[in-house]
């Protein structure tokens, strides 16, 4: 079997395994979802504002919710592997270890997108704001890719430490600042009807961040997971 097909097969196997296990247990998705809905509910009561002001805080509230819920999922996704020794099982496979990373990114991204797909209509109802702009959805997709790309790498580092539950947010939030800022700016640009020229630099930053961090993770994942 050629190396590329064995790489892709391993990526698909890891993603399939995570999705199949989650479909049965629903541990991770339910925790992320309940947390997200509680956050937007709390913001809804905390920010009793007029419609115009609500629209201006929408992107900030949304990305705060996605970032915290995403961190919850990223932490759990790797912790489950470590606690049951399954991370060793994955590392023992005769494949390029970055295939494990990409498989994990795909499953983590899928969980994040599922949560976002449920949160967006609920948010639209609660805040009386239409969030279904194709541009905004594209920003959410790009932001989620960047966040899970760097989050999966950092959670595989954090999971090796004794204080892993607090370690991931401490490591992740400073590194994810560019992706969060550009996602918030691009989202609010779409929501306020800003000109394309104003949104474009933030979109470019998002794309550059996604590419750079995916490439870095591809190069260093093997060293991160080996003792």
């Amino acid at each position, binding site marked *: 079997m050629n190396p590329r097909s064995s790489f892709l097969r391993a990526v698909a196997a890891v993603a399939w395994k995570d999705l199949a*296990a989650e479909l049965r247990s629903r541990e991770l998705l339910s925790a992320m979802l309940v947390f997200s809905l509680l956050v937007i509910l709390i913001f809804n009561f905390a920010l009793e504002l007029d419609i115009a002001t609500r629209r201006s805080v929408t992107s900030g509230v949304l990305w705060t919710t996605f970032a915290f819920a995403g961190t919850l999922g990223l932490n759990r996704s790797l912790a489950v592997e470590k606690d*049951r*020794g399954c991370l060793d*099982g994955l*590392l*023992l496979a*005769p494949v390029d270890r970055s295939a494990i990373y990409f498989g994990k990114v795909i499953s983590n991204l899928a969980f994040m997108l599922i949560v976002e797909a449920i949160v967006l209509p609920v948010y639209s109802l609660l805040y009386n704001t239409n969030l279904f702009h194709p541009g905004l959805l594209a920003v959410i997709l790009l932001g989620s890719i960047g966040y899970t790309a760097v989050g999966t790498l950092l959670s595989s580092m954090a999971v090796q430490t004794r204080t892993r539950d607090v370690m991931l947010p401490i490591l992740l939030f400073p590194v994810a600042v560019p992706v969060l800022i550009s996602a918030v700016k691009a989202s609010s640009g779409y929501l306020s009807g800003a000109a394309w020229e104003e949104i474009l630099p933030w979109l470019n930053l998002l794309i550059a961040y996604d590419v750079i961090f995916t490439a870095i993770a591809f190069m260093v994942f093997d060293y991160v997971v*080996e003792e």
Partner: protein
Amino acid sequence: MRKMIEVRKLTKRFGLKTVLRGLDFEVQAGEFVALLGPNGAGKTTFLRILASLSRPSMGKVKIAGYELPGQAAAVRARLGVVSHLPLLYPDLTAQENLEFYARMYGIRHHASRITQVLEMVGLQARRHDLVRTFSRGMQQRLAIGRAVLHDPDVMLFDEPYTGLDQDASAMLDDVLKTVAAQGRTVVMTSHDLARAEDLATRFDILSRGAIAASITRDSLGKDNLLSFYKQALAA
């Protein structure tokens, strides 16, 4: 006879702590080596280096002719590892777990191989049950099935009897004997001297990060393993 495992002057440090100190170790093809020693001797660290889960600080490690860490993927393709943790996913069935690992190892036509392995470990009737419903003994048998799925030349067992009751241990004995009878090279760490004496063809005592003594079953003669073990640690 062909050397299956060759280790020269292996040193492993974790920060300031040196766990393995210039360890030399050799295993011929088809040998069953029991690696014995007290807690903290470095048995698990040594096995993790052989399994390419940990990088040596210094020294050379060769398995089936391939060097670590440079040719780690080739080594891993020829290696089956069983530890005290089953390395299985509790929310997948026995069959799904084996299918997942078959994909990771690139096993073609894996359906027949999975059936063969499940029969070997006596879990054919439970193949569609979730692993979380299995007893510890059944999980450990399935873990052995997972480890032999890709038909490895070398098997590493790290304390495989941990947490097993007497019946499950006896069943594991049978599976281990079957694995060894298939001509595989086996290295097993254990605290259970009686079980090691029953299964292994050679006994190596690891103490303070180096092999303190080594003896084959034939050379052990009338002396029992316990007295040999005590002498090796006292020296």
